[in-house]
Every structure is written in structure tokens, then in C-alpha cells.
């Protein structure tokens, strides 16, 4: 039991050590979300305008 616990922790450490910064990814998907939001409200605005 104890042995498994130690090796799990080690795996976590290795995973964390090799975890690269994904900030460029994060900004890219945020830009994607911005596009979704802007286009959606654009058409929503048209709908409201035409009511």
C-alpha cells in the first residue's frame, strides 16, 4: 500500500515538472470564445431590432 502511494506521488511530480505553460493555448481559446460571443450578440441584436 505505502509503496503504491509513494510511486503515485512521484508520477504526479514528474507530470507537474514536465507540465509546460499552456498560456498561449489559453489565450487562443479565449479569442475563440470572444469570436463566438461577438458573432452571437451580433445576430441577437438583429433579432431584437426586428421585433
Amino acid at each position: 500500500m505505502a509503496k503504491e502511494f509513494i510511486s503515485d506521488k512521484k508520477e504526479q511530480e514528474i507530470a507537474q515538472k514536465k507540465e509546460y505553460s499552456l498560456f498561449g493555448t489559453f489565450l487562443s481559446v479565449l479569442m475563440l470564445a470572444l469570436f463566438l460571443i461577438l458573432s452571437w450578440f451580433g445576430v441577437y441584436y438583429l433579432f431584437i431590432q426586428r421585433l
Partner: protein
Amino acid sequence: MHLHRLEKVWLLIGIGTLVMFLTIVGISAFAQGHHPPSDLTTLDPQKVDTTEPFNQPGLKKIGDNEYELVIVSQAFAFMPNDIKIPEGAKVHIIVTSKDVVHGLEIVGTNVNMMVTPGHVNSLTHTFHKPGSYLIICNEYCGTGHQMMSTKIEVTKA
């Protein structure tokens, strides 16, 4: 399953955005009455000409600047054609088909609905701006589909 911290944040933002969209249209539909056209009335599609109100298609005044517009669609025309209403009029549009599925679209407005034979569809629209509005069939109905149209003339008050 292990999710990178930034992926967790991203999914929160993404799902939050989708929930925001659904909430906005949900409130607009269920609390403010802006449902998409979903009439549940049915009739015999082969007896349209003898079924009320379609036995008398046309514009009928039902109140102060309020009208009922009963339309019968068939390949390839809308009946009535050339409708005139005053600016600011609130119009309850009621439509059915005598044959195949048609679409009823008033160009430049939110009036857009499917017209299925055997069913009635309906939508209420207020014409705030004067002008000539094209009504077209926007669902393929045969070789004359591109000719299927009529007009609403919204006259200045």
C-alpha cells in the same frame, strides 16, 4: 481524469458562455413570449378551402390597428396577394398549405416559419416601418419555387 488547470478554467468559461446564451434566449422565449412559431392546430390538408378561417384568406381588422392575416399557400402562390396595412399595425399571421411544405418569410423581419400541410402555423408581427415588404416562400416546393412570393405594403400612418 487529470485536467490542466487552464483547461478547467477554459471549460468553465466556455460552458458559462453557452449557459449565458441559453438563459438569454430562454428568458426571451418563456418569460417575454418570443417563442419560435409552434402552432399546434391541425386540419385536413385536402379540405383547406372549406376549413375556417382558410375558406376566406385575407386581411381582417380585429381591433384598433390590429389585424388578422389569413394566408393560404400552395405551389406556387400565396393567397391573398398584395396586402396593405397601416404603419404600426399589429398583425396575427395565420397560414397553412394546400399541398407541400412551404416556408413563409417576410424579408427583413423575424417573420419566418415553416408551413406544413395539415398544420397551421402562426406568428404575430408589428410593422413599425412603412415600405414594401416582400413575402417569399423559402422552402423548396417545386420548379416554380423561385416565383412564389407576394407583397405587404405598409402605408404611412
